[in-house]
């Protein structure tokens, strides 16, 4: 009998029923946006086999070794915002492809199909514990989270709208740096986003950055480091130059933990390392502590 047939009409064992119930529960909270293929996967850190529902229930953190799986933008939004409060802004914005770089537009289309994202950031408005916030979440799986025209423009528009609406801004950073294919125009996004945040700041409004793995290059050297409060996920790689570039420059191996979230905290460039399961609560506390009007 083929394997498929074998499972067809069988009733579930009590154990399986329980498991299905857990999956449903997890799905109800956050699974719907990020279903890994199959029933289980190997943790890239400790190598142990982990059931997907365990990963999901545990906020995409390995239950054995505690290492953090990367979270996709929509999953993150589901984790952090109150249910069904997210209103997305500026979807489907397109780059002008300023260098007319060969193959770039094609590559974007492929990325869009594979990741089911329009670009490397999602922006919009939602609520955290009932409080209105403007949120931008970057994702590493779209062109390594690199910042080009569209990422810069979406973030700038979100910040400008937040200034107008007098709302706090929360940005989850995750980026390999500038979008090389857009050359110097991608560099300008650093100045553009920072200038918009300065206006938001001058208006006396709150900006929180949450640094997630990895945050490097032009994003680190602009909006990632400009939060009134800077939070980071445990173990995240955060730096300006990439570790390999530094190793090449200085000709030696980097020490363990260099450019980790913990390294940043130690050197005074982050306020707090927050475990993923506590993130929503911490954000709510910061927002409540900065209520200005």
């Amino acid at each position, binding site marked *: 009998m083929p394997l498929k047939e074998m499972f067809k009409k069988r009733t579930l064992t009590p154990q399986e029923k329980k498991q299905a119930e857990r999956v449903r529960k997890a799905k109800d909270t956050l699974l719907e946006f990020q279903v890994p293929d199959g029933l289980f996967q190997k943790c890239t850190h400790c190598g142990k086999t982990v059931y997907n529902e365990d990963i999901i229930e545990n906020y995409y953190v390995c239950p054995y070794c505690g290492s953090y799986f990367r979270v996709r933008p929509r999953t993150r939004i589901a984790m952090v915002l109150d249910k069904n409060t997210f209103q997305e802004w500026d979807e489907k914005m397109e780059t002008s492809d300023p260098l007319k770089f060969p193959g770039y537009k094609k590559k974007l289309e492929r990325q869009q199909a594979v990741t089911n994202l329009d670009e490397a950031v999602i922006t919009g408005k939602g609520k955290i514990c009932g409080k209105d916030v403007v949120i931008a979440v970057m994702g590493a799986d779209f062109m390594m989270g690199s910042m080009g025209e569209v990422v810069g423009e979406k973030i700038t528009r979100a910040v400008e709208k937040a200034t107008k609406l007098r709302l706090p801004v929360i940005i989850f950073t995750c980026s390999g740096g500038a979008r090389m294919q857009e050359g110097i125009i991608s*560099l*300008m996004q650093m100045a553009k986003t*920072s200038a918009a945040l300065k206006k938001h700041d001058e208006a006396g409004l709150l900006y929180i950055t949450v640094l997630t793995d990895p945050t490097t290059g032009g994003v680190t050297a602009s909006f990632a480091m400009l939060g009134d409060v800077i939070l980071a996920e445990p173990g995240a790689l955060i730096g300006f130059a990439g570790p390999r570039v530094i190793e090449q420059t200085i000709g030696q191996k980097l020490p363990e933990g260099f450019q980790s979230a913990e390294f940043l905290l130690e050197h005074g460039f982050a306020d707090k390392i927050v475990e993923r399961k506590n993130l929503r609560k911490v954000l709510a506390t910061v927002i409540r502590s900065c209520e200005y009007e």
Partner: protein
Amino acid sequence: MSNNFTPWERVEISRSSERPTSLDYITAIFDRYMSLHGDRLFGDDKAIVGGLASIAGRPVTVIGQQKGRSTKENIKRNFGMPSPEGYRKSLRLMKQAEKFHRPIILFVDTPGAFCGIEAEEGGVGEAIAKNLFEMSNIKVPILSIMIGEGGSGGALAMAVGNEVWSLENSTYSILSPEGFAAILWKDGNRASEAAKVMKITAQDLKELGIIEQIIEEPEPACLDNIMDISEKMRTMICGFLNKYDQKTQEEIVDERYDRFRKF
């Protein structure tokens, strides 16, 4: 354009040890220059120089990224690669300029910010970010002039100007053509090809709206012809100062915001 160099030839000229440095131009253009030092937090980065100067009888603040000419001087200047304290010094001097209503003239010439352990420990990303953030709102006119290499965020941190000008054979790019070729084509040897597609020459940058003016170099700038080029720059800078004298603080800030908002 006075010369028909290829983009890659311009990259080589922009990096040449013959090319005048910030201090060469500062000495040649301004009537008086007094250096100021230190970021008041940690140290004094020798890769960034700056201080008080005057031009046609009016005080200005000048700041420049400084390369060396000899190996010994290059080591002292860290090859023009600024550390976090360099960016913090430049911001301190810009804030001082704002307080005393002095226009700011910046000379950009760096392969990029320093990529070392100390730079990361000192928060070079934060230092650059803070410059971009604060410069967007400075109430006096800012002019940035690309005199050599304009490498990435390390250059941008001194180029959030009301206007950005470039010498004809200077470059301004997201990263070096070698790095670009290595990342996108996995082949660092295709740098000259990369220089062409990256649009990094003054002419390309003007077409993209990244710079307002090109300062011509009838011959590639060097110490022999620096007086001619500086004389031209001096006239242009005076023109810039006169033009911005007519503007209110609000106009100066709003125009700078719009300049970067359009990208």
